[in-house]
């Protein structure tokens, strides 16, 4: 299994990967509290970008409503915790299938009735909006007033109940990001990965070589939704409060997709690289402005806009394809 995963990967890439992983594992030892919170946000978006990339980058199905799956995971686990004291890892067992079923439902509607391209994207937005409005009126989860997890100062990290200091969330997200990366690599090397790429490239041609495109698109949506909802559980227990207008807002969905777009859609490194570049630079910008005593609301959004423009103009495939050419990896699969 491991041998297959690293099959055909050049040694220098493995070395580089080893250095990055080691640096990330050791980072909390030296990082300040602030830097650690930035790294948590980066890993959160790297993981989510990887999950979204399965649908768009691999199977070619554009989702602009991934906030739906984040929210379903977050609300289900948080509500079970608040109302019944059920811990997040058990809550996962309810939250993740809920998101999976939502994904399957949207996918079935769209693919059964041949809703594709832009119209599919609009459908995903619509369902995230349904959820936002729905949760606004759902008293069980606090409706518009928000759902709050009890918080106190934690001396110890309770991994089982996800109560504790940021460093614990950092390692949970790091493990999730690493697993997502390995999982996506394994998927890309497998039969299903090839079929997804074929569907992305040309659906009719894919059907002509015997691929049941409906089935494989459904699998992509469900895997992506399931992975995404796990990040939602972490979100709920990290921030300890959930508001429908924030969690399900389309802005959340857009934030998820910016990383992979900037880093390189359809590549394995793109979502991670994109999260580092976008969040890293945006936070640098914010703290630089703070240090200079400049208070510019919206500076981050303007910065995202400029980044996107630059990438689209200079590197239309994203940073990773450009970078991999630069370090001579362009003959390899992403």
């Amino acid at each position: 299994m491991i041998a297959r995963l690293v099959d055909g990967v050049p040694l220098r890439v493995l070395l580089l990967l080893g250095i990055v992983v080691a640096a990330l594992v050791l980072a909390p030892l030296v990082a300040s509290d602030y830097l650690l919170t930035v790294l948590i946000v980066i890993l959160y978006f790297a993981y989510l970008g990887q999950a979204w990339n399965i649908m768009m980058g691999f199977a070619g199905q554009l989702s602009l409503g991934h906030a739906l799956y984040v929210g379903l995971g977050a609300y289900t686990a948080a509500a079970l915790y608040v109302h019944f004291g059920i811990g997040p890892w058990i809550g996962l067992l309810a939250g993740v299938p809920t998101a999976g079923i939502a994904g399957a439902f949207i996918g079935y509607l769209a693919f059964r009735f041949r809703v594709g391209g832009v119209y599919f994207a609009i459908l995903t937005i619509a369902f995230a909006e349904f959820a936002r409005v729905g949760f606004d009126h759902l008293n069980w989860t606090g409706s518009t007033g928000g759902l709050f997890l009890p918080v106190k100062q934690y001396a110890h990290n309770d991994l089982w109940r996800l109560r504790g200091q940021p460093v614990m969330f950092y390692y949970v997200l790091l493990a999730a990001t690493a697993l997502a990366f390995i999982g996506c690599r394994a998927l890309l090397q497998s039969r299903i990965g090839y079929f997804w790429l074929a569907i992305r490239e040309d659906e009719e041609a894919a059907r002509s070589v015997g691929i049941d495109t409906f089935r494989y698109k459904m699998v992509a949506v469900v895997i992506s939704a399931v992975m995404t909802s796990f990040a939602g559980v972490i979100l709920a227990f990290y921030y300890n409060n959930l508001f429908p207008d924030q969690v399900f807002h389309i802005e959340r969905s857009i934030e998820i997709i910016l990383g992979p777009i900037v880093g390189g859609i359809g590549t394995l490194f793109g979502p991670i690289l994109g999260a580092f570049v976008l969040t890293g630079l945006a936070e640098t910008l914010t703290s630089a402005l703070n240090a200079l005593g400049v208070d510019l609301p919206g500076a981050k959004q303007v910065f995202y806009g400029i980044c996107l423009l630059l990438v689209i103009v200079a590197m239309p495939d994203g940073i990773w394809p450009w970078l991999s050419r630069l370090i001579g990896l362009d003959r390899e699969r992403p």
Partner: protein
Amino acid sequence: MSPLLAVDNLSKRFRGLVAVDRVSFEVPQGTIFAVIGPNGAGKTTLFNMIAGNFSPDAGTVSFAGERIDGLAPDRVCRRGVGRTFQIVRPFPALTVEDNVIVGALLHRHHAHDARAHAHAVLRRLDLYDKRSQRASALTLPDRKRLEMARALATDPKLLLLDEVMAGLRPTETDRMVSILKELNRETGLTILLIEHVMRAVMALAARILVLHHGAAIAEGAPDEVVRNAAVIDSYLGAEAVT
């Protein structure tokens, strides 16, 4: 012996236009069969009905003794019918090798086995040396061969080829003809081809069907067909025969 492919009274109309009009023919196992006719005669529509892209308005298509008309294209392929498209559609961003691996994975579950099979197919079609190139970087003749390779990798019993000779130079046509002959002889593959290049048709086909305005106007051995008055009149032109 029952034929591998039997098309019976097949019809398709697009609004007022009758694209294919009660066409019947049979392709015996292990033969090469050609469909010729002027542009707009309904050849590609006929193909699309066999491959499942269109469902016919009337008539039936039987493959290996079972009805396949109205089945979705992916199911027709899984029964054992491979096809190429008149306007080529390889997977552009994938390498030549990966394009063929996708086809090979239809009946193989591991990428490793599929790669070995893909390599064998690529060698047969003279594409092995180009296996690492992106499909979008290939010339048109190479892309046509890549589509053939992708279809062949699905291990079809019947291969539908839609104008794979178009745009080829005479030497390339000859090479393609010999590749197809080899495939047919060595693997027993049955081939149904639409073709305009008569030199290839004459060299390959055991039987020819001529379509004109959607209807079959002649069918028979190549020598008979090219002497048929109606065929000369509607398609070949008098100078082609002399």
